[in-house]
């Protein structure tokens, strides 16, 4: 038996309502997708920033710990003085030396034993050698410096060094000074300066100063 009510297609208004709902759902989905992509991009950028600053902090810590090393310190007797012992700390700059090639018999740093770390032009710079110009060996602007970070991707915005000294006396009257250097390293992504990160660290200098 035939059903009296005939079959009908959709009316225009039904189609419009359906397509409106469809567009809303699709829009919502696209929005979620866009949010997700943006978040992924931000995470990647943050990871890159932390990686760069982490590597820079590891470099700073390693260098400061090594400061003052003199290969012949053990054999040195009498009035021999370790010329590597001095550490010069300024605001955004630290200068130090160590016996890189273990070749200093007199305990006097050569030009390729003098190092430093400083903040210049948005980059952490490292000194590879210094023959000490007119300003002497405590001039943060003398010597050969290289950037260890790339300002095109990460701008180092702040670098502060501060020295701590802990002097003590041995029973025989020798004064021994344990030293450590605190630092704060702050950087931002060059392409998105709102993404910033800060690392605060401290490095105990492993070679105490002996007077």
């Amino acid at each position, binding site marked *: 038996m035939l059903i009296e009510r005939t079959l009908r297609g959709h009316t225009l208004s039904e189609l419009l309502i359906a397509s409106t709902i469809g567009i809303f759902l699709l829009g919502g989905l696209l929005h979620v997708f866009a949010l997700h992509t943006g978040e992924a991009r931000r995470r990647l950028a943050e990871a890159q920033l932390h990686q760069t600053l982490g590597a820079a902090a590891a470099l700073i810590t390693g260098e400061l710990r090594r400061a003052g090393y003199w290969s012949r310190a053990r054999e040195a007797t009498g009035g021999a003085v370790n010329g590597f012992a001095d550490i010069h700390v300024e605001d955004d700059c630290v200068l130090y030396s160590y016996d890189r090639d273990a070749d200093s018999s007199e305990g006097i740093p050569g030009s390729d034993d003098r190092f430093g770390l400083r903040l210049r032009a948005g980059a952490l710079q490292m000194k*590879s050698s210094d023959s000490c110009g007119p300003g002497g060996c405590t001039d943060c602007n003398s010597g050969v410096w290289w950037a260890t970070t790339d300002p095109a991707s990460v701008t180092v915005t702040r670098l502060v060094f501060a020295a701590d000294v802990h002097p003590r006396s041995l029973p025989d009257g020798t004064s021994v000074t344990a030293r450590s250097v605190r630092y704060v390293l702050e950087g931002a992504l060059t392409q998105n300066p709102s993404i910033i990160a800060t690392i605060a660290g401290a490095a105990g200098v492993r070679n105490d100063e002996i007077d």
Partner: protein
Amino acid sequence: MNAWHGYTLMETLMVLALLAVVMTTSIPSFTGLVDRQRLRAATTAVHDAFHTARAEALRRSAAISVSVESDGDRWCLSLSDDGPCDCRQPDVCRLGERAAPVIDSQRFPGVTLTTNFPAGAAAFHPPRGTGTPGTAQLRNRAGRAELVVSTLGRIRSCAAPAFVRPPC
């Protein structure tokens, strides 16, 4: 009352044909998106490997090699604390007691990797993390990215088109 009816076959076919046209125009832009993501993922993986190599060189006080083997579209990259190694062989590249992770091109279809390090391997040295100067270049249809290692061990990266990384 026979005036109302559902869609006819012709109408359905026409709608499907229209949909097909829309899809074919949008799929190329989608594959472009996938290509870009693959290049980014490969660049990030290789960049991380270089950073890890430098960090491990400082941490272990040992020279760490970054070995790259490439043969056309296939390539692999791995780290080793025992000189350059062949990352195509399983468990040959080692960091201390452990097998070093291998980055394989199979994870990034269509992305090629070429380097100009001497003998195909870069190395980072203690005590200051100094490196073998050279460039690693990743490429696919979507663009290219470069990682540049300096003598001082700085690892610089750029990408074209730029994404998160600065432009090349």
